[in-house]
């Protein structure tokens, strides 16, 4: 077990090193610099631009910058986010929990809804319920998140006032509210962005889960369960689902990077200041240390998610006897 963990850790470290180096090198080829926009004024003399570049080490040759950056990264120092006037660690510490909350909620909601939809479709296989739900999930997969987000923001937020248009909490005296009221307020603000992301997750999960369930339903042990007199719902829930859910859980781990990618636009539309928005702003501002840190965080999230989902998938899958007759 320890060896396996060590191997996974080394594997993760290599991936992070490759990703960070690639991003660093790519960013060197991007035109512009972090101060191009900030110092784009007729009153700004070239000497000030030069001072700013020197202050953040941008006047050094790329190789020297890379060496310095690598040494700092190895020591766990992520650098300084010039576009935010804050250490990168502070920026990440501020934004990451919000993204985890958003993406985590979307994953949980989407997974639960997707499995439930798949169960319904399998129960009513080839009937109108299956076809309607199948069409819905197809739309959910096909429509991009940002479009769903704009529609939800316009109708559920701006027109019908069911949810707030954007933001992470109510204004006014919300800071003095009791904890439970603040939690409800947070959930109210989270509903639209998480709901939009969850819809996409649910659609993908439902399609994969349905296919997996239909495959399992042809197995002998399902026929045995039916022969024992179990109802169709019980067969589905107690026998088919545990055998079909493993691959879908593993799929969630693989889906996380694309979910984080989708969160970039959803966060922007709903004014949710998470890692996606941070990465987007950092890219536009050419804030190199912040871009590398944001990509590293996303990479780590993907690796951790894959590890966790693999473990869960292994744990929930029933072990079948495979010994020789």
């Amino acid at each position, binding site marked *: 077990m320890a060896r396996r963990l060590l191997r996974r850790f080394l594997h993760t470290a290599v991936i992070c090193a490759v990703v960070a180096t690639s991003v660093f090198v790519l960013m060197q080829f991007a035109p512009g610099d972090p101060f191009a926009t900030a110092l784009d004024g007729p009153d700004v003399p070239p000497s000030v631009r030069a001072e700013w570049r020197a202050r953040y080490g941008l006047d050094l040759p790329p190789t020297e910058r890379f060496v310095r950056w690598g040494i700092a990264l190895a020591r766990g120092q992520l650098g300084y986010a010039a576009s935010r006037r804050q250490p990168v660690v502070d920026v990440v510490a501020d934004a990451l929990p919000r993204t985890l909350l958003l993406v985590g909620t979307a994953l949980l909601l989407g997974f639960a809804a997707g499995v439930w939809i798949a169960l319904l479709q399998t129960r009513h296989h080839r009937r109108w319920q299956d076809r309607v739900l199948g069409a819905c999930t197809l739309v959910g997969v096909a429509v991009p998140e940002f479009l769903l987000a704009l529609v939800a923001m316009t109708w559920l937020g701006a027109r019908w006032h069911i949810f707030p248009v*954007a*933001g992470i909490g109510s204004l006014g005296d919300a800071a003095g509210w009791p904890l439970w009221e603040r939690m409800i307020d947070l959930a109210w603000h989270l509903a639209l962005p998480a709901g939009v992301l969850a819809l996409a997750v649910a659609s993908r999960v439902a399609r994969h889960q349905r296919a997996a369930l239909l495959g399992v339903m042809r197995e002998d042990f399902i026929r045995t369960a039916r022969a024992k007199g179990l109802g169709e719902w019980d067969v589905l829930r107690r026998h088919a689902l545990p055998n079909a859910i493993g691959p879908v859980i593993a799929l969630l781990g693989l889906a996380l990077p694309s979910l984080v990618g989708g969160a970039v636009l959803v966060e922007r539309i709903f*004014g949710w200041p998470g890692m996606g928005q941070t990465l987007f702003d950092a890219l536009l501002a050419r804030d190199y240390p912040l871009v590398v840190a944001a990509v590293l965080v996303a990479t780590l999230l993907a690796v951790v998610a894959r590890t966790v989902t693999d473990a869960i998938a292994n744990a929930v899958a029933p072990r079948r006897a495979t010994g020789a007759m």
Partner: protein
Amino acid sequence: MINSAVRPAAAAVVAVLIVLSAACRGADTGPSGGVLVVSVGADANSIFPPFGVGTQDRVVSELLYDKLADIGPSLNTIGDIGFEPKLARSWEWSRDSLTITFHLDPRARWHDGRPVTSADVQYAFRVWTDSAVGVAQRVALSSIDSISAPDALTARVHFRERTPAQFYALVYTLVPLPAHRFAAIADTALRDAPEVRAPIGSGPFRFVSWTPRARLELAANGAYYTGRPRLDGVVFVVAAQGATVAARLLAGEADFLEQLAPPDFAQLPADGSVRAQPYGGFDYGFVQFNLRDAANPLAPHALFGERAMRRALTMAVNRTTLVRSVFDTLGRPAIGPFSRTQWTADTTLRGIPFDSAGAAHVLDSLGWRDANGDGVRERNGRPLAFSLLVPASSRVRQTAAVLLQAQLKAVGVRVNIDQVDFNAWLDRAQRGAFDALVGAVRTSPSPRGVRDLWGTPGPGRGAQNWGQWSNATFDAQVDSALAATSTDAVRAHFRVAYQSAIDDAPAIWLYEPRLFAGVHRRLSVRALRPDAWWSGVASWSIDPAQRLPRDRRAATTP
């Protein structure tokens, strides 16, 4: 001799303003309370005045910090006519105009209760001019030699040279800073010091909290020296997506939006809960030609080095149609290298009229003809084609580029639109790596910026003249204008300078947007100043009958 010409008039104006402001305060008994929520598309980067560079930085820092004096409604930048007292209750000029003595208002306090003193003005000057701090606007104070402090409430500014705009440059740039709070921090460490993210100011609002990219909250300064603001607080809510910024206002989640975009007008609620309030702006857009070869800056550009070609292309563009397509009625064709809001603007100048037949004739005469019938003119086997650099961040400029492409195609010119992200656009513009670009500028009340934008590149001018246009008449007239001490003389010189720029066509002067702020009906605002809509926020009010739960918070703040 600006001093002798200006001083008596200035003294009279200051006296009248003091009387008027006192009278206004006496009559200023409107409702107080309520929190103004402003929907913005970009967060501030720094709210500490020396480090602010973007508009949102200015908005917040100028609500937190008062200047010595502020520009008046006339937006005059010559002498001190029209300037309104702020932290400085009064000021006087020396006979040679090389010294201005400011008398600080003894009632003025920092938000921590300490008095504002002349040491704070001295400290601010040090921060702005110390190269170790690296303040971007320090060149604006280059004519100031030093600031002395004869006593705690007197700051004496000594200038190296007299210029007509020396007063404007000083008070518009330099903002007194609390020395007791920051002086202990080394200048080199000031930029990254945590204290500058939660600053103590002297203005009508004090800092409360800042959640980056989400919201920034200010509360009324109850001890403000000219009286507490009517509003209890101001909250800026941030959303990077343009549709969300407007939706917040339209849904009633915000009270104010700096600028409504053309699509927002169709969304304005029929019940009149949101109105569009017009105000002047300092923006104009243009297509700038690169007069130098992008690969070899010493050689003229193969197309745009020729004046007749630039004029022909200008003639081929129907700017009225283009502006109508982009802005509907919310814009108008630009006249020249200025905005109509600037006090030096001249709307009687002769532009190059739209005449596609005339443009085709000029191109024919230059030897550019469509010999092979593919719709694109050629000369010596070279097609009449160029790339147009456009920033992806601006939908207005993208649309304008597409329309321009279609209009020039009609006269046999092929335009290849080269769309890149803003940072890359700026990088290529600064390096001169383009044929032509769609640019836009937001000028300041001072016409001085035109020298940097369109003056011949060289010491003290042309820093942003990316197209490398050079015109001796323009340079000389702008220099004369900026040295003139009477407004009539300034206008006369600028008139000649602007006309020479229009005639020489270093750019196609495209559009000038008409600005409309979105204002919720519960909010009562006064006239919005074109260069700073936020300048009167302390006097804005919210109808008590239309208070919302979100207004409760600031009522509990001191």
